[in-house]
């Protein structure tokens, strides 16, 4: 095997393909990136850890075809550090020589025949706008659990109904829901899948800069798999198995109290006030006619407060939030104003965004947060 490739092209492709390689792989070969040089002038790169696979292809000047398996992390680091010159790669016995300008590297290879077969891309079910998908995924994954003791909640539930897709995630303390449109392969599609939030977020970040992301799905036929394809890059992942709890019912039916606040002003104030709220303690929001007063700390501890303008409909109300969760919700909104909808100081509070102080909220993104309760 022997080929020459542009340094930037190689570095970019290897970094992307190796990005999800495990630091402690169950088998040594799984730390590798498989490089297949096609005499037609294409390099195929692949990585796989039995759950997530990644494949990319780049143009190269291939003088001799062949396949090798080398350490993904090492090759990624080397290719990023090389001078900006063409890179020559050649298999020499059991070693791979990488030369670029005056730099020379010799890498050990691993047995290609022990490398597992990558799963095939399932059937295409629809196409997202890359940027919109990336944004929606970021908005929802803030609420997903990072706690592996609850594996189901580390997933995002993706519900597909024709041209509408709904993403849902919760860590039991908050719940995020986002609806977006897409172009389904079949207009009467109706299905749902659980995709690990980390994988989804990673895909959205790495493929989101492209105009279109194609989604493929296979459920109920042996292996449940989701695949994403964009610009010659393909990622597949096993789906999370289990019955996701019926979380939509958690959104309140009626909310007699509403408050609308400038999103950025509230984020800034909350960040300042939260400085005195030690880890996980509360930030209190007292809404009354025309204003909301933020406060944290009490008794002998450091204290802070700040008031900002707010438009309140309904009775005065005070709620307390984990500052981290509050800021996550506000940060996920992309509108100048945030609307809080309340039923009771101890009941979940719904966050939605709106463009103007007066007017309706945008219901396509909703963040529901359980307030902190103080002991009597």
């Amino acid at each position, binding site marked *: 095997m022997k080929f020459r490739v542009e340094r930037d092209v190689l570095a970019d492709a290897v970094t992307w393909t190796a990005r999800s390689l495990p630091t402690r792989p169950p088998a040594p070969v799984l730390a590798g990136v498989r490089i297949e040089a096609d005499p037609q002038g294409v390099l195929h790169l692949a990585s796989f850890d039995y759950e997530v696979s990644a494949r990319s292809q780049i143009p190269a000047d291939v003088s001799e075809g062949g396949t090798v398996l080398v350490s993904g992390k090492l090759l990624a680091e080397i290719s990023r550090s090389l001078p900006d010159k063409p890179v020559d790669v050649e298999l020499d016995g059991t070693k791979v020589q990488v030369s670029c300008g005056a730099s020379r590297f010799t890498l050990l290879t691993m047995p290609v025949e022990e490398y597992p077969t990558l799963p095939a891309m399932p059937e295409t079910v629809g196409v997202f706008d890359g940027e919109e998908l990336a944004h929606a995924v970021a908005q929802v994954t803030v609420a997903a659990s990072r706690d592996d003791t609850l594996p189901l909640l580390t997933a995002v539930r993706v519900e597909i109904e024709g041209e509408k897709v709904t993403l849902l995630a919760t860590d039991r303390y908050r719940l995020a829901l986002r609806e977006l449109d897409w172009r389904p392969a079949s207009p009467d599609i109706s299905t749902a899948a659980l995709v690990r939030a980390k994988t989804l977020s990673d895909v959205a970040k790495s493929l989101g800069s492209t105009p279109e992301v194609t989604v493929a799905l296979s459920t109920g036929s042996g292996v449940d798999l989701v695949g994403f394809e964009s610009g010659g890059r393909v990622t597949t992942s096993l789906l999370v198995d289990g019955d996701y*709890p019926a979380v939509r019912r958690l959104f309140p039916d009626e909310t007699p109290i509403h408050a609308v606040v400038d999103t950025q002003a509230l984020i800034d104030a909350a960040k300042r006030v939260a400085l005195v709220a030690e880890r996980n303690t509360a930030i209190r929001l007292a809404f009354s006619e025309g204003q909301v007063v933020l406060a944290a700390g009490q008794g002998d501890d450091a204290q802070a407060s700040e008031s900002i303008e707010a438009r309140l409909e309904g009775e005065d109300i005070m709620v307390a939030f984990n500052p981290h969760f509050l800021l996550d919700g506000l940060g996920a909104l992309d509108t100048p104003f945030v609307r809080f909808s309340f039923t009771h100081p101890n009941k979940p509070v719904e966050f939605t965004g709106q463009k103007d102080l007066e007017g309706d909220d945008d219901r396509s993104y909703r963040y529901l947060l359980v307030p*902190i309760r103080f*002991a009597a």
Partner: protein
Amino acid sequence: MSRVRPGVEVRRDWGSDDTGASILHVDMDAFFASVEIARRPHLRGRPVVVGGKERSVVLAATYEARAFGVHSAMPMARALRLCPHAVVIPPDHRTYREVSRQVMAVLAEVTPLVEQISVDEAFLDVAGARRRLGPSSHIAERIRTQVRERHGITCSVGVAANKFVAKLASTFAKPDGLLLVPREATVPFLRTLPVESLWGVGEQTRAALARWGITTVAELADSDVALVQRAVGAAAGAHLHDLAWGRDPRPVRPGRTEKSIGAESTFGRDQRDMDVVEARLRELADECGARLRKQGLVARTVSVKVRTSDFRTLTRSRTLTSPTDVGREMFLVGRELLAAVDLRGLAVRLVGIRGEGLSSAAATPVQPTFDELALGGQAEAPGSVRAAAEQAMDEVRERFGSAAIAAGVIPERRQGPSTTHLASGQLS
């Protein structure tokens, strides 16, 4: 600090001017062993070791046993090889806690400025109590007398100008002694010591300093602080240099309760079956939860400790979203932590779990889950249903003893790495 052998030089009289020395460090001598001897006087003068069976470690040893080289944290088997005629007594933690509580009450009679460090150690700031009770060294003697008379056990007291020096002084006063280091003698006293006497100097720091030719506190004090920082890092370097000059501004903080509550257990035989290790972890977590509830505390962080057959000890910890006193929640996190430990293919010798970052349950705000809200007003405690179940277990134990009830395991079909199942419609 037992590895620092007091030299003759250190034990000498450093003067009697205690006006600038208002910090006392009170340390029980061989506490668990002393308590046992106090209720079994016929054992006095004999080598006594408190600890479990062969494979556990020494929890306390009398000075008679220490003469044979036995010390706490040593494996029991090794202790018995060194001192085959030692009397081994299984630990009775309930009694030790009770005696500890009474001793702390003695200290509280002196001043409210008592900071309890562990079951058998405390700092006192007697600056204000001196008007009422006389000079610091009189107060120290008074405490030693009262503890001896009321409980039949001895303690050693270090008297100095700050916490760090007082703690060193009590080490050198042991056993059954008192050492006053007057404020003016602080630096000369420290200069007689090897560098590993300082708080925070373990084997690694000692070796790092030795590479720069620093082996004594005197050499450390005389070195440029920049050099010390280059050897051990900026923060640690500045701190050690301060200590070498006797600078320790930390005040005595009263009301500080236990820093952590934990339980650990050594297996009868090194254990390779992770299901067995996990089952033991479940019992320990259950015990931790019960102790937290008994003291009205919740833990913010869960840490797991594993010792492999080669005596390597690994700990892993995770901070929870919401503090807990529920054994099951501690176990679920503990199990994840345990699974992430790289045992290098070795068998497990010991496993333990600990709740850290403790605070009063009554004063800690609760971040409820959606489910706890759905249960309505009854969800007053974290963990809701599970918490209620464990509280019921506490009551059963109260009436029928600790062995009467324990958390059980329903054998589950193994599905991948985790056996947590969520009922549909429920989030936890």
